[in-house]
């Protein structure tokens, strides 16, 4: 294969991320559907390449409260990943999982937070499995960490990670649900040398 330009690699990488997002979100949807005992459909994920400085308002207004679940990954790929949900989606999933009144809008208690962590864990693991099987790389996630806070402050974490190498970040948006649509966002943050490893494993290199 001839040498590709950065732009070509980026375009190809976006396509691959889309495909990983597709498979990962498919796995996650199946896992959540069987856990909650409901039927879920999903749409094709969208991948957006954003300026790092715009990440804080990429999901919703900067001051809106969202849920962020953060995992570190290691073994063949070092880095971290995040799964983000708006409050209405998080509330819906928690209430379904814990069998509460679906319209309850109270603040999250300890039990809710731990249910959310578990949901985030399943979704992130499904996504990482897809990445792992496409690249043949072993990826081990850490335990999940959770934060419920302003979108801009949660998104400062990936913004800083990406900001160390460049000015762009990739955000993957998935949508699933039946009567209520759940919006979820993935951000994969490989360390710089792991990013090259992923590209190489996919047959894309600079």
């Amino acid at each position: 294969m001839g040498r590709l330009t950065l732009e070509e690699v980026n375009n190809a990488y976006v396509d691959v991320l889309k495909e990983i997002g597709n498979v990962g979100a498919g796995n996650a949807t199946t896992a959540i559907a069987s856990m909650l005992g409901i039927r879920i459909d999903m749409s094709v994920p969208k991948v957006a390449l954003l300026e790092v400085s715009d990440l804080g308002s990429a999901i919703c207004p900067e001051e809106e409260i969202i849920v962020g679940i953060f995992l570190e990954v290691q073994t063949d790929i070092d880095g971290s990943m995040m799964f983000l949900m708006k409050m209405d989606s998080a509330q819906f999933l928690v209430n379904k999982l814990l069998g509460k009144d679906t319209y309850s809008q109270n603040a999250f208690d300890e039990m809710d937070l731990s249910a959310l962590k578990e949901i985030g864990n399943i979704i992130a693991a499904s996504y990482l499995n897809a990445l792992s099987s496409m690249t043949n790389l072993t990826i081990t996630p850490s335990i999940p960490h959770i934060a419920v806070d302003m979108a801009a402050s949660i998104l400062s974490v990936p913004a800083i990670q990406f900001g160390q190498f460049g000015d762009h970040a990739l955000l993957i948006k998935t949508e699933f649900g039946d009567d209520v649509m759940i919006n979820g966002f993935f951000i994969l943050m490989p360390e710089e040398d792991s990013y090259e490893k992923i590209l190489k494993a996919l047959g894309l290199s600079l």
Partner: protein
Amino acid sequence: MGKVIKVGMADLNICKSPDIITTIGLGSCIGLTFYDPITKIGGLVHYMLPDSRQTRNNSNIAKFADTGIDELLRQMMRAGANRNRLVAKIAGGAKMFQVSGLSNVGNIGERNAIAAKEKLRMLKIRLAAEDTGLNYGRTVELHCETGEFYIKAIGRPVKII
């Protein structure tokens, strides 16, 4: 009341009384303000990383503590602020996720706060007050009429430093 000037991530600006300068949802980033109480000129930089020299891609000077604070100082002076009267305040530098302390993500907020203090010491500008660390996001406002620095967080009372 004057205008409200918004500063984004990796961004900086200055303003004069009676205006207010604000940045929304500081996480691990730092919001650093300068204020001259006589001319009532204020400025705010929202930087993401402690040191421009550790990054190859460092064209956006407001992204880093060292270059961002220098540029904010330059703009303050050009607008008529007196360097000897300047007071600095900082907020942010939170650890949003309770990951192990050794990793890069774990301590970036703390490193960002330390970078501000080192830079201010070098510039010989007094750090009058700070609200940094812990695990929550902060929205901040510098009121140029009074020099008061408002800090707002979810589920916490407003703090004025």
